[in-house]
């Protein structure tokens, strides 16, 4: 979790003012907030296609911050009580995000849910993404890197830059499976319009994925509802609800997450190749190289 002091905020503000003044328009990501120039720009409320990002730091994403009013990486700080099974699953998950377990910093922030105050080094953690397993839908949506909505005639493909994950949301009118034979890393998803809100429901998500970075669990029976509303030309709003009686004693509503619209030209390689980056978690790089030579030794595990 990011913590921004007043002094550091001033540094960032200075950077934003400099970088969002048009100087960064070519090849950068100047998406601090909804662009005032787009305030009256017409848009189709039923068009959610294109690239969207929750990150507000120009050029700085991927582990960096989210834009200030886009929500953080957590699903929500207010968590319903666990069931006994849910508590057991939560305790088994050892995240590496948030405030350090047992630190004075963690002890000083009791206003935060315990999930955000129990980070351990990845070498002793259990984050499934540390070994490149798919993130699952809610966690991928919460991460600050961009995603692209590819709207086709019978489905929407959500492509997540981080991890290069692709998720299918069927819009061909089918119903969700009642009791899927096998869980999927990205689950089974259907979507339809409810007025100006695009509603996605998902079930059958592999319970090895986490709800968010902080190791909140779910069962394969979880019903995840996502409600998307395009509230201006360059702002997409998302609210989620998890209903999972095996794990949580009540439905769990997310905090509102907001996305800023990016043009594909807003993301370019040094060669000028526009569009989402290939930000793949490849075991050859992440596990065999980075984990063995950096991540694990940093946590005291030397191979």
């Amino acid at each position, binding site marked *: 979790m990011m913590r921004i002091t007043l002094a550091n905020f001033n540094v960032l503000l200075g950077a934003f003012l400099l970088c969002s003044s048009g100087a960064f328009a070519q090849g950068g990501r100047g998406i601090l907030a909804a662009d005032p120039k787009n305030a009256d720009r017409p848009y189709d409320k039923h068009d959610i296609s294109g690239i969207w990002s929750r990150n507000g730091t120009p050029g700085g994403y991927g582990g960096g911050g989210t834009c200030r009013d886009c929500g953080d990486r957590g699903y929500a700080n207010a968590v319903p009580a666990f069931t006994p099974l849910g508590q057991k699953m939560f305790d088994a998950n050892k995240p590496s995000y948030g405030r350090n377990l047992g630190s004075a910093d963690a002890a000083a922030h009791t206003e935060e849910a315990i999930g955000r105050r129990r980070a351990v080094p990845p070498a002793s953690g259990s984050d499934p993404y540390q070994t490149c397993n798919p993130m699952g839908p809610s966690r991928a949506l919460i991460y600050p890197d961009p995603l692209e909505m590819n709207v086709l005639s019978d489905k929407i493909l959500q492509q997540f830059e981080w991890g290069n994950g692709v998720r299918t949301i069927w819009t061909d009118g089918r119903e969700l499976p009642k009791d899927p034979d096998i869980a999927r890393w990205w689950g089974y998803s259907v979507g339809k319009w409810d007025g100006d809100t695009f509603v996605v429901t998902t079930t059958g998500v592999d319970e090895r994925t986490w709800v968010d970075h902080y190791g909140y669990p779910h069962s394969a029976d979880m019903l995840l509802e996502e409600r998307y509303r395009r509230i201006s030309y360059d702002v997409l709003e998302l609210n989620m609800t998890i209903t999972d009686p095996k794990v949580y004693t009540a439905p769990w509503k997310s905090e509102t997450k907001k996305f800023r619209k990016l043009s594909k030209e807003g993301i370019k390689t040094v060669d000028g190749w526009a569009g989402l980056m290939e930000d793949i978690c490849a075991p050859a790089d992440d596990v065999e190289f980075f984990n063995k030579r950096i991540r694990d*030794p940093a946590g005291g595990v030397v191979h």
Partner: protein
Amino acid sequence: MKNIRESCFALLVVGVIATAVPASAHHGTGVSYDASHPITMKGVVTEFHYANPHPQLYFDVTDEKGNVVHWGGEFYPNPAQLIQGGWGKRRSEAALPVGMHITITVSPSRAGTPVGAILKLLNDQGEVVMGVAGGVPGQAPPPGPPAGEQKQPEQK
């Protein structure tokens, strides 16, 4: 335009480091490092690996008695971030050849192993490399010319 972009990138890298070091690396490794006790070393590059999830720099540090310790450091920006700042793979590799003498500031691992998160990196000309000019967390960046052209005094 390019210079302005790189200045913005350098400023943002500093800003991200200054505000997010304690706990938010791409892969959650921030928790492994002690950002409150950065150390500065002089070393020689032995290997540079530009890849996900974070580029890594390996270097040797020789102490006063002639003992050599082999260090590994991870950059906080990932390749996708670095690319947005103009630090593509070829430019980065050219800036950090094997044998390059560097001055490097890292947040060391809490475990005491010779691994760190790179906060600041200067080449043998005293130039900031890859826009990593953060100094210690919380320290405001000095305004100035773009990364790669910026001369800075060595950190004490």
